[in-house]
């Protein structure tokens, strides 16, 4: 760990500017990263999938996929990575930074948009700019996969209903032969317009290095 640690220390400054995390937070996350990757430079899907704490998460797949999605790297690229480095890991994490007292309204708005984009990307797996019904259904099915008996039919029905809701909210005057292909990002923003994101899409990244004590438990 030592070698990478020193090198990483130099990089911290750089990363702080890029992601907005403090040096302590980066250090913590880095420790965690190395733990997950087994002290490798990069991390692969498998190592994330092996996290036992995640195993109960119904949308595990989507979350992991989000880390390997180039769209979440703020670089206007598309496609997926096979493995991600710490920097990319951090970039994804930076989506969940809470606002501080100093954040201005515009910045907050931008943050909100970023988070929405992140969610949108989770839905939009084929990266065509719209969430199609199939994609939506899939997410809902995953969400409900822990509910047991209710099963797939309900999930389908719910996704359809939700889709219809989007359509009717966003395209109020559809011509008779129009067909609502999918949710674009604008529509996505529209339907979640009033929803408070602040309390839901933030993680308080710890400054203090308590993570190592705890992650022993969560990775075991």
């Amino acid at each position: 760990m030592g070698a990478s640690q020193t090198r990483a220390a130099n990089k911290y400054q750089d990363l702080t500017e890029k992601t907005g995390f403090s040096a302590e937070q980066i250090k913590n996350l880095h420790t965690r990263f190395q733990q997950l990757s087994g002290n490798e430079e990069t991390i692969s899907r498998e190592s994330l999938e092996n996290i036992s704490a995640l195993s109960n998460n119904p949308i595990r797949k989507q979350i992991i996929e989000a880390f390997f999605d180039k769209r979440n790297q703020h670089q206007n690229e598309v496609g997926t990575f096979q493995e991600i480095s710490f920097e990319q890991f951090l970039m994804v994490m930076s989506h969940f930074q809470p606002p501080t007292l100093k954040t201005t309204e515009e910045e907050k708005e931008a943050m909100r948009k970023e988070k929405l984009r992140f969610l949108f990307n989770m839905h939009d797996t084929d990266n065509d700019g719209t969430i199609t019904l199939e994609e939506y259904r899939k997410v809902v099915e995953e969400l409900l996969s822990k509910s047991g008996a209710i099963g797939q039919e309900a999930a389908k029905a719910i996704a359809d209903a939700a889709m219809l809701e989007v359509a009717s909210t966003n395209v109020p005057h559809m011509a008779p032969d129009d067909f609502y292909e999918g949710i674009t990002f604008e529509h996505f923003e529209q339907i979640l317009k009033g929803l408070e994101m602040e309390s839901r899409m933030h993680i308080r990244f710890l400054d203090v290095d308590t993570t190592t004590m705890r992650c022993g438990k969560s990775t075991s």
Partner: protein
Amino acid sequence: MDLSISRRAGVFLVICTVLSLLYGCRGEIPPKPTGGVTIVPPIKPDNVPQAYPDAEKANLPVFTMDYPRIQIPFEITLWMLLASFAKIGFHVYHKITIWVPESCLLVSIGLIVGAIMHSVHEEPPAVLTSNVFFLYMLPPIVLDSGYFMPTRPFFENIGTVLWFAVVGTLWNSIGIGMSLFAICQIEAFGVQDINLQENLLFASIISAVDPVAVLNVFEDVSVNEQLYIVVFGECLFNDAVTVVLYNMFSFVAEMPVVEPVDVFLGVARFFVVGLGGMGFGILFGFVAAFTTRFTSKVREIEPLFIFMYSYLAYLVAELFAISSIMAIVTCALTMKYYVEENVSQRSCTTIRHVVKMLGSISETLIFFFLGVVTITTEHEWNWGYILFTLLFAFVWRGLGVLVLTQIINPFRTIPFNLKDQFGLAYGGLRGAISFALAFTLPDNIGRKQLFVTATIAIILFTVFLQGISIRPLIEFINVRRTNRNLSTINVEIHCRLMEHTIAGIEDLCGQWSHFYWKDKFMKFNNRILRRILIRDSRAESSIVALYKKLELQNAMEILDTVSGDISAAPSIVSLYEEKKSSAKPKKKFLAADLRNMHDILSKNMYKIRQRTVAYTNKHALPNDSQTKEILIRRHASIRRSLRPGSFQSNMVPKSHKYFSLPAGQSLDLKFPPSRLSYTDDHETMSEVAYPSRRSRFGQPTRSSSRAMMPMRRLDTLKEAPSVDAVDEGRSDGGRTGHGMSRTNSSYSDSHVVPAPRRHHPGDNNSGSADNLRNSHHETQEEEEEQSQPSSPSPVWAAEPRDSTTRNPLLRRPQWNPKKM
């Protein structure tokens, strides 16, 4: 017939205010205050004759009157009636309550009544003895707050809430107490005889905040969830802290000498009392939940268990002299979730109403008496002491919030900014609890009267000045707002999605916060608690719950249209209609017959209970704002069997719109939000303004009209098979939509044409013709898509039919899916 008695009876019934005189006339402080009011010999000396019939002859009296026998309950009833009338009065012109908090109005009425009583030298009623207050008036208020506590935000902010409630109250009590003690040392004020213990006791009394009025305002301007819940939780738990402190200090105040060890014992006791109360609460909560598992055969007494268990928790906690408020609050919080799943829908309604009613009347009475007592008691006015009390209360509250926020902010995901802090500090109104505590001070406190006076002064000051000014101020400084009125399926899905995402990311980071604990608890809850406590213990996702509820709602509407008067319908309707119709009179309707139609329908329809919105205020029933949702039409078979009623002819144009989810219509239109008393919220719901938006305001019976429309449509079209899959699987639209479009439009046109003719001239609901047409096209198209045999999936059809066919009326809804 005794003259004086008949006169009194007449006065009773005629003028409300005189009630108070009559009641007050027996206002000696009861020696033994158990029963509620005095049991003292009732009649005043000047109304002498008591034993009227037998005074003359031994004949069998034809007409007798035994007023003393019924006096106590009679007068209690009349007092309550008077207070309730006052409440009705406020809402007649309902703009008043927006600008002036209800508590202010109640106090004002109380002041007037008090003035009248004072002018005729009557004594105030003696209901406010310590026992009456703590055993009868306080529990409903606290149960109300506890039961309607929005669970999810509360647990998300529990740290902050407890921090402010416990530490904040301690801070205030000790700060104010010490400062006042310092003031007492100044000779000029002449209050040197008040020692430190008494000052602390007094300070603990006035540090209980009771921001009912503030909560109303917060809810109205929909300030952000965090601020709201902190104020809500603070007022709830600091009641508990205050009462503990009060008991402690009043014990200490009677001791001649306080030794250091007593201080430590006091601290230890503080924890015993608080945690003990919590323990009892949880225990009784679970027992209550467990009991309701078996009440399915005795629905009629189901609600009783809830009240009895909470009251029992309260009383047992009192028995052991631990925090009874804590006990009843935790009991309510614990059992609510499980109980509401176990009991039937109607029981649940009953529980909620009764909790609300009791809490509301208790509080009304306390504020009312506050006004009366302000006038009728003797005051000891000490400018210095009282003004400094005001000043210190204000300063310490402000300082406390500032300091405590600085400490708690680093631990919060969303820190409180200065505006929030202002809201918190300024929201510190004093209220019922302070007053009651002051009034029930033990008599051996030397300066009791001064304390009562000072407490009343501070209550009046905060309630009137801060209570009235907080709304403009909050609006002026523009505190961060949260829109709470979203409950569409998409929002629900995405809330869940975000929760899971956050939990997942937290796991990835290897750190945990409340999402981690929430996950753990949900697991435990689903595996063990629900199995034990809930009869039908399938864990249900909130999304499914919402969806099912919509289905159920729809099914019930359709069913109810058939069998117009289901037994319980009128009563339930009336409960729900009350406020809505008063707040939004139906004057928007031009056509009188349309209005009649709605009236008739509304009386015959079973109103579906909506999911509770998490936020409630103390003076109104939970605002069951309707879920504005897409309508899922699956029950084609039921619908086909329907025959249009006699009212429907003028609804025909609309029928097209409502047949399935209309593309051209706002969702709002279908589920006009029943924001009960305040209108401004409507604005938040409709991001898109539709031409026919107006109808939301004038459509008291949305369910009825919705339910009726499809039938008419079906009747006209005679196209039964297509209805079966009215669900809108849009996926197939791509294939079939284009091919069908030609036929669709012509087909639909033929049906649209007659519409305007049947369209009632006064029915401004249906909006412009264009709109109508467009939406009709859309609807038509969707439907046609579905009717294609080639189209893949009538997606709705397969799903949880069981939930509705079983017995839709008895099926319990998921009250608050969001609470998980």
